[in-house]
Structures are given as structure tokens and as C-alpha cells.
């Protein structure tokens, strides 16, 4: 049995079925991310004064990722337009560009995650704090048994609040050096993973969910670029519609990032 309205528009809706389906799906996605943005607002305004982080994320990398996604949205549109004018070669080229841009985005995001994973805040027994990127842990390091040492590239501060605003003049002028700290002097050692504080929790949740969308979209686009493109030979119009539907999803992913970038990196 043939699936109806995969090419021609349904008389009652005015659009083909897959297009209506993707718009309904995107509407539900808006509410999914909306819920998480709502959580972000509550966490931010509920934070104690001076305890909401600023400048923790790399603006340069965030900007590069913003432009990469904008470019990929454009190449997706051009891939669809190439299908419309029956230029399969150009379609292949533009969609390959989309895939490469998406993978680069994910690569940069992975690097950012790794950077947070090796960034440690260390509460010291003397009441001070050490903060920086892990250089090495001694082979015998065991915090529970208080043996061994840990070396970080960072700085010491008197108050934890000094670690919150990395855009402050004090933080900007701070000199980062290598420090080796004995386990016996450490009260608590924790990396900047999701459980570090509410900012990292919502940061990893929002960007992690977004990255999963990027990954899913990339897999679909790669399928349509590779084995799925066989449909072009027997039903080009239906294939073009598939490209359109996957493109709408991709643009939505770009839309989400348009708000994630300023909310997390710039404010």
C-alpha cells in the first residue's frame, strides 16, 4: 500500500503529511527546551547574590560554534534548493558541508566538555580554595587516605565567591601558575562536572540535550546523503521532501543554539 500525501499536499491541511508531522514535533520540542530554559531562569534568580557564575565558558569557542551552525543551516537550505532545481551534484556537496560543519561543532563541544572535566575546585584544609586545570595526580594519590599529591595550573583564592566572576578585574589580572598540593591539605576536590553547582548542572543539561539533537540530526542527514539518496533516482520529489523535513529540524536545532549561546556564554 502506498503512503498517501508524501508528495502532493493534502487538500484539507494544504501541506504534505511529513511536513505537518515535523511542525507538530518541533512544537513539542519548543516546550521541551522551554521547560529547561524555565529551570535556568529559576536557578539563576534563586542563586545567592554573587554566586551565579560569569565568564566560565569560552566565548571564542561559543562564537565559532554559533557561526558553524549558522553556516550549516545555510548549506542545508542550499541542499534542498539544489534538489528543487534537480542538481544532485550540488545537493551532495551542500549536504556534505552540513555534515562536516555539524561534526566540527560536536568536536568543539567535546573539547569544551573535556576542559570542564579537568578543571578542579579544591577546598583546602586551611579554609582557602585552589582552582585550576589538572596537570597531574601522583600515582599514589588517594584523597580518602590522604596520601599523594595533585598538581594544578591555576591559582589560590581566599573566598569561593572570587571564583564566580571570571570577568572581574581581579580574576582577569590573576596570575595562573602550577601548584602542587598534598592530599593531606585537601578537604574536598571536585571537577566542574554537572554536579559541581547549579550552573554546571543546567549548562550540561541544556547543551547535552542540544548536542544529542545535533547528533541525531547529523545521523539523519548522513543517511539521506549516503544510502538514503538512492530514492533520488526513483522518486526525486519525495526525496526532496525528506530533505526539506530534515532541514526544518536542523534549522530548529540552530534556533535553540541562537538562545543557548547568549544565555550561557554571554550573560
Amino acid at each position, binding site marked *: 500500500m502506498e503512503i498517501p500525501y508524501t*508528495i502532493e499536499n493534502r487538500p484539507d491541511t494544504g501541506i504534505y503529511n511529513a511536513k505537518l508531522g515535523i*511542525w507538530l514535533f518541533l512544537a513539542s520540542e519548543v516546550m521541551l527546551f522551554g521547560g529547561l530554559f524555565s529551570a535556568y531562569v529559576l536557578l539563576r534568580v*534563586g542563586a545567592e547574590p554573587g554566586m551565579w557564575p560569569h565568564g566560565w565558558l569560552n566565548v571564542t569557542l561559543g562564537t565559532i560554534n554559533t557561526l558553524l551552525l549558522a553556516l550549516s543551516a545555510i548549506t542545508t537550505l542550499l541542499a534542498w534548493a539544489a534538489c*528543487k*532545481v534537480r*542538481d544532485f551534484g550540488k545537493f551532495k556537496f551542500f549536504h556534505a558541508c552540513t555534515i562536516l560543519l555539524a561534526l566540527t561543532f560536536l568536536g568543539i563541544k567535546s573539547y569544551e566538555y573535556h576542559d570542564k572535566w579537568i578543571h578542579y575546585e579544591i577546598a583546602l584544609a586551611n579554609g582557602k580554595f585552589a582552582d585550576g586545570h589538572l596537570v597531574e595526580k601522583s600515582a599514589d594519590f588517594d584523597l580518602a587516605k590522604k596520601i599523594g599529591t595533585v598538581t594544578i595550573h591555576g591559582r589560590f583564592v581566599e573566598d569561593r565567591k572570587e571564583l564566580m566572576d571570571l570577568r572581574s578585574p581581579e580574576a582577569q589580572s590573576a596570575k595562573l601558575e602550577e601548584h602542587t598540593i598534598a592530599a593531606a591539605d585537601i578537604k574536598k576536590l571536585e571537577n566542574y562536572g554537572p554536579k559541581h553547582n547549579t550552573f554546571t548542572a543546567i549548562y550540561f543539561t541544556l547543551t547535552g540535550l542540544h548536542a544529542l539533537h545535533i547528533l541525531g540530526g547529523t545521523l539523519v542527514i548522513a543517511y539521506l546523503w549516503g544510502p538514503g539518496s538512492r530514492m533520488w533516482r526513483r522518486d526525486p520529489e519525495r526525496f526532496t521532501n525528506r530533505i526539506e523535513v530534515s532541514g526544518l529540524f536542523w534549522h530548529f536545532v540552530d534556533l535553540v543554539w541562537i*538562545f543557548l549561546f547568549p544565555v550561557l556564554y554571554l550573560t
Partner: protein
Amino acid sequence: MSDTKANSAPAAPSPVPTHAPAAEGHAVNLHSYFRLCAVVFVIVLCTTSAMIATSFAHLGEGWTLKVALILAIAVINAFLVAGYLMHLLSEKKLVYTVLAFTVVFFIGLMGLTVWATNGFPPGTVSH
């Protein structure tokens, strides 16, 4: 993007990339899409730069004004993507209806969130 039933050959160039090519008697023109994409990308570059500049600008104490300005610029970016790249400016009525419901619920969700921020229950402890 647009409806289906593509023409097999591009017709005369149109100044603006058309939506719904066959169904409404127009043809997609790749060159006009190149122009559109170039314009959109340049605007995205400008708005992104403006957001970053605003973020680092000295606009008094606090973040409220900065956040408002940056989000306003982000809305311009979002309008470009949704309006032109997703062709939302020339979509069918049904799509607008679906999105109207979404907008209402989204505004309701955010409205409740902002409302809640002004009234944490007595005794709420923040860490």
C-alpha cells in the same frame, strides 16, 4: 522550506527565493538562494558581534539591562532563521495555527516562571 512538485528546470530568476514553487506557479532559483543566504549570514555575523560587544560593555551595575539587550538581539537572529531559512514567513495557515498554540503555552510557561521568581515560599533556603 517550501512545498513540493518541483519543476525540472529553473525558470526565470526571481528577486526573492520563492516558496511553494510548483504549487503556486513559481520556480526555485538557486542563485537567489545564494544571495539570500549571503545576506542572512552577514546579518548573523553582525548580530553575533553585537551580542558579544553588549556582553562586555559597561552598562552600569547588574546584568538585567545586558540580558534584555542581548536577548533582543538573539530574537532578531531567531527571526531570520525562522522567517527566511525555515520559510515561516510564507507558510500555510495550519502551521501558523500549530505554532500559535506553542507560542501561547511557551509564554504561559515563562510567565509563570517569572511570576514564581518573585515569590519563593517563606523559609526557602538557597545554597
